[in-house]
Structures are given as structure tokens and as C-alpha cells.
């Protein structure tokens, strides 16, 4: 299915849980925050939130800054 991740359209296999996607992308769930269709996803929900076609997802984390 198609979803938008950080502004880029992506094709991913479904069904897919958020936690799976994060792992697939090689990211550490502990240090990434997800905005799912504009809503901040509490970390506990990562394991249960199922992505569906057309979802818009923002994956954000800390970077060096002053």
C-alpha cells in the first residue's frame, strides 16, 4: 500500500504495524517520535498502531543543535 513518510510517498507491504515500519527503516523506536496523520503517537501505541493506505506519517528525532 502507499503511505507518505516524511513527505515522501512510499510503497510498503501491508498489514504493517508502526513498530514494524520503524524497525524496517532501521530506526530505534526509543529515539524516534511519530506523528500519525497529525497526531503524536504515544510510544506504547507503536506496537499496536496499524498503518493503513494513505496514512501520513512523520518520523522525527533529535539531532545536533544549539
Amino acid at each position, binding site marked *: 500500500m502507499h503511505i507518505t513518510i*516524511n513527505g515522501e510517498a512510499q510503497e510498503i507491504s501491508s498489514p504493517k504495524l508502526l513498530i514494524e515500519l520503524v524497525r524496517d527503516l532501521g530506526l530505534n523506536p526509543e529515539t524516534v517520535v511519530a506523528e500519525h496523520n497529525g497526531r503524536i503517537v504515544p510510544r506504547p501505541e507503536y506496537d499496536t498502531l496499524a498503518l493503513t493506505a494513505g496514512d501520513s506519517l512523520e518520523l522525527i*528525532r533529535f539531532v545536533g543543535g*544549539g
Partner: protein
Amino acid sequence: MLQIAGHRFRSRLFLGTGKFPSAQILKEAILASGTEMITVALRRVDLHDPADDIMGVIDREKYVFLPNTSGARDANEAVRLARLARAAGGGNWLKLEVTPDPRTLLPDPVETLKATEELVKDGFHVLPYMNADPILALKLQDAGAAAVMPLGAPIGTNLGVTTALQVGIIIEQARVPVVVDAGLGAPSHAALAMEMGADAVLVNTAISVAGDPVRMARAFAQAVEAGRTAFEAGLGARKTQASASSPETGLDFIRS
């Protein structure tokens, strides 16, 4: 000892983590600086470089973690970034930056005050980055800011405390800690800020772009201590007239 929002800091040097040549050098610079307060920014994950994760470098437990809202152009964007930072595990500390103009990166006094009010209500410890405006400092303090962070000079310029006159008034009036932020380009600048009575300084560019960032971090650490010690020890007054350091009498015998 310095206290902000009830937390005690032994080190009065706060460190920004931007623009370091490598994660390893950042790691060593953090240690060399002796800092206990570290700023980070929040950005989209670069999906093409998933492994580049600053949290692998910083021991989240050992430091007070101070996410900034850099990039925010108004209060709304800043508040949104602040909440994302908290969700990302950033805790309640926040360096509030509202800079509408990416060319000058100077703070917006009105939006900064607005965002401060909102984020304080929301339980954040807000440290607003601000122009060296003494009246604004009082307003931010009244709005519940945990500290105020007047700029010494525009971000990244290394020009030093160009706002000394205003910063001096801010320090004199403040009931919350004053942290001089931005533009400090050399240890002597940091020492000067501390001699003036600033409670702390935040440094990033001057350290991260130095020839040797790790040694420069150590240099700033020493300078901040030197400046603070001098402030506490009591600096001598400036004079316009010379006054001898050696005795002025007892030399008649050498007069030719």
C-alpha cells in the same frame, strides 16, 4: 550553586551540539566541557541515513537534556516542536527559539512571550532565547520562564557580548537565572559574561567549528569558571588614571 527549575548545576557552561565534525568529537567535547546541560534540535529522520542517531552519543541519564525549538518561526510552530520534543523523550526542559527570519536568526519578542506563556502552562521549564531587551526579560520572567537567555550577538557570529550594556541591566533586574546565549566566540567572551554576573552561558558554534573542538570545550570550561570566580571574588574598579603597583616612596637615593 546555580539552580534552574529546582535543578542544581555545578557547571555554568551549557553546550550546544550542532555542527560538530563527528559524533566521536562531540562525545569528547561534551566530556571536556564538563557541561551538565546539553541542547539538541528536533528534525525529521533522514530516511536515507537512519543510523545517524545523536542519542547514541549522549548518555540521556547523565545530562539535563535541553531540546530547542530552532526552526520555529512563530509561537504555534514552537509549541508544536516543544510537544514533539517531549514525546520524543526530551523531558520538560525547553530552549525556546522563535526566529521568523532565517537570515538573521534573531528572536521574535512577541511570539516568544506568547509561546512562553503557553508552554509554562503546559508544564515545560522554558528557557527563552531573546534579544537583549531588559523589559522583555522582565515579562518573560513574569510569564514563568525558568531562566532568560539574552543573546550576546547573532547566532554563529563569534562577535562576543556586543549587548553588554543591555545584558548588564537584565542581570541587575532578573529574579531568574540569566544565561547569555549566542555569539560568544572565544573563552574571553564567556569569561566577560560571567564577570558581569551572568549565571551561565550557552556555547555551540565557537566550540564545534574550532580547529580542535575538544580542547576548545576545555578552554571555555576554564574561562567560565574563571569569570564566575572573578565575579564572586570581586573585581577591582576601572580607573582612568594610572596608579603605581610598586611603592611610590623610598627611591630618593637613586635620583640622578
